[in-house]
């Protein structure tokens, strides 16, 4: 494909996908599929989407929410009190415990409710409201980082700063803007600007400058993001995470199956809107999405398409969403849902304590069980 358009123009198109996505999300919220009081602040002109789009927006959000919630709630299970185990200073520094960290051979005290400190990084966050939605429910990580192009983060920062609904959630009187208004910093939420294609060179240092800790278990989210950049650049991100993080869970939601009639038409239609999916040919199937990680040494990976996610809805939940509007697009829905997947993978680097590593893996594994 010839890159006739300047990169800037193509980036504008990528940024524009957030507009599309947020309107779709609000459509689903307004009809009762999703519960989110924050989305409306990002949409100037709401538009009702067709039922199958509402259903897909619902499933997409719900799935990523489930991963996030389970990740936040997952903890390292307490050791049986009879056992004696070595705790390393490293371990005890991480675990919030009322007992004094010690290097002596002792039993690990039961993990208090506050649990192990974690981080969440939302790549290409756009107008995503997950941090706010979750914190409003009492669910939060130690720190939630959001990253996107400066033009996008600037708009988001404005909305956040001027709406009490958002600043109340952040709840930090020292909430600050930075980088000419394109970034926002607080205790547990950080909005950073940057180009994911320069992840290692410019985003990583920025993350670290704002308290990002590679030793903390971290969830990385890519919700229709990596697909828009060259596979070399998305691989670089996956490589960096796998190499530098002590324990991480990576969750990707994006398009697959470019080659069948529907997929080919999808690429054509998107191209007519100047939207390209450079990542889709590199990872065009569920299997290749898994191998994306396992080939790089990640412990475990999985991928399912949106049909599978739809099928795993409880009868009650399916009944609930079916009552929200007429849904007469079963075949078309299945075609569409076959072309989207959620893929996940986790890794934990060898630690001083093998037990700790196993515990981290357990934590991550619990995050993906569903």
């Amino acid at each position, binding site marked *: 494909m010839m890159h006739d358009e300047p990169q800037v123009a193509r980036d504008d198109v990528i940024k524009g*996908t957030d507009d*599309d*996505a947020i309107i*779709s999300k609000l*459509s689903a919220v*307004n*009809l*009762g599929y999703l519960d989110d009081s924050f989305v*409306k602040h990002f949409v100037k*002109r*709401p*538009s*009702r*989407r*067709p*039922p199958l*789009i509402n259903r*897909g*927006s619902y499933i*997409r959000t719900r799935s990523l929410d489930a991963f996030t919630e389970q990740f936040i709630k997952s903890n390292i299970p307490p050791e049986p009190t009879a056992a004696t185990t070595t705790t390393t200073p490293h371990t005890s520094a991480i675990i919030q415990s009322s007992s004094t960290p010690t290097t002596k051979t002792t039993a690990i005290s039961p993990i208090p409710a506050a649990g192990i400190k974690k981080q969440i990084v939302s790549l290409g966050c756009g107008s995503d409201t997950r941090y706010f939605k979750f914190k409003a429910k009492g669910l939060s990580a130690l720190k939630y980082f959001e990253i996107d192009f400066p033009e996008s983060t600037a708009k988001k920062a404005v909305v956040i700063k001027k709406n009490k609904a958002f600043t109340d959630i952040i709840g930090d009187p020292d909430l600050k803007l930075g980088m000419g208004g394109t970034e926002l910093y607080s205790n547990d939420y950080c909005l950073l600007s940057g180009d994911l294609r320069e992840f290692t060179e410019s985003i990583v240092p920025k993350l670290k400058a704002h308290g990002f800790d590679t030793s903390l278990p971290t969830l990385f989210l890519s919700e*229709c993001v990596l697909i828009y950049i060259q596979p070399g650049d998305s691989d670089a991100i996956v490589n960096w995470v796998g190499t530098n993080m002590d324990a991480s869970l990576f969750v990707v939601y994006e*398009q697959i199956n470019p080659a*069948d*009639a*529907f*997929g*080919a*038409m*999808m690429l054509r*239609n*998107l191209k*007519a*809107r100047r*939207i390209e999916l450079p990542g889709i040919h590199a990872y065009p199937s569920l299997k290749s999405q898994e191998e994306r990680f396992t080939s790089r040494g990640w412990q475990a990976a999985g991928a399912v398409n949106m049909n599978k996610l739809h099928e795993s809805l409880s009868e009650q939940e399916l009944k609930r969403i*079916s*009552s*929200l*509007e*007429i*849904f*007469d697009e*079963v*075949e*078309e829905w299945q*075609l*569409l849902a076959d072309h*989207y997947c959620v893929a996940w993978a986790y890794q934990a680097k060898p630690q001083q304590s093998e037990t700790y590593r196993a515990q981290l893996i357990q934590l991550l594994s619990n995050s993906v069980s569903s």
Partner: protein
Amino acid sequence: MVLDLDACIESLFQRQLLAESVIKEICEKTKELLMSESNVVHIKAPVTVVGDIHGQFYDLLEIFKIGGYCPDTNYLFLGDYVDRGLYSVETISILTCLKLRYPDRVQLVRGNHESRAVTSTYGFYTECMKKYGTSDVWHYFTDLFDYLTLSVVIDNMIFCVHGGLSPSIHTIDQIKVIDRFKEIPHEGPMADLVWSDPDPGREEFAVSPRGAGYTFGSMVVEKFLHENRMDHILRAHQLCMEGFQVLFDDQLSTVWSAPNYCYRCGNLASILEIGVEGERHFNVFEAAPENERPTPAEAQRTLFSNGVPTGLFSNGGSNGAGVGGGGLNGSNGAMTFAGGASGSNGGIDPVQDTIHYFL
């Protein structure tokens, strides 16, 4: 007003809309015609059977090119004329005119989209508002839909319906006694006929994933054909990637006539040509070539400015600018949903203006 149907048909072939007053009259006259049709209309081959069109007017033109023009070719349309595509108004306008002009050469069966509730969600209502500025045209057509027949039998051998079979219906006579002159109910035999789907993996009836109608299996099909002494069921309603599908050992076919459905599915379409001896041939075709079709953006140009319809064919009489209008009529208690067209979801926005994906 003297209605010149040939002129109306000609201007529709030229992609020009009819004036609202003309539509009103055409719908009135067609209702009178349809009123005397049974719920089961008997016709003879040869006939060309067309499945779902869903407002894909350019593909309907393609169908006439491939299958022949009225009245040279007899046509049986199996419903779902509107919604999803960009030209539901043009599509239903021309089909109504053709029915009125050649009543014995054109049969129109009711599909599940020929319904107030469904067209409020899936685009026809919105398109009417956009093209005419008021909901009057939507009212005229949806009132007309109440009169469309429910089924057709060809040569006493082929039972044709939009969706499928019903657990409440074992014989043709049972269909004849249904009161069809109303909005499609949420359940019951009339709903089943327009909503049901075959399930080759089953033998009996089962709950449908569509939330209306049922799925029906091999034993149901065999029993129905045997009981009514027919040898084939012909229906539409389900997207077929190859344009058609044959099931249950050639006892049932689905014909699907909207290629690249919603500009998204990449599917083929077909029309079923039934010869004088009852021989069946699926004539498969692709979407009409790009350069014969305006882009969705062009199609969205408003045909209504300064209160006066533009680009409309008027047959004398009023300028077609409707009075009052706006807002939806109650859906007669059928198919009500918790959501509805919520005000907080913004104003009228056609469901078909962009080809939507998840981005």
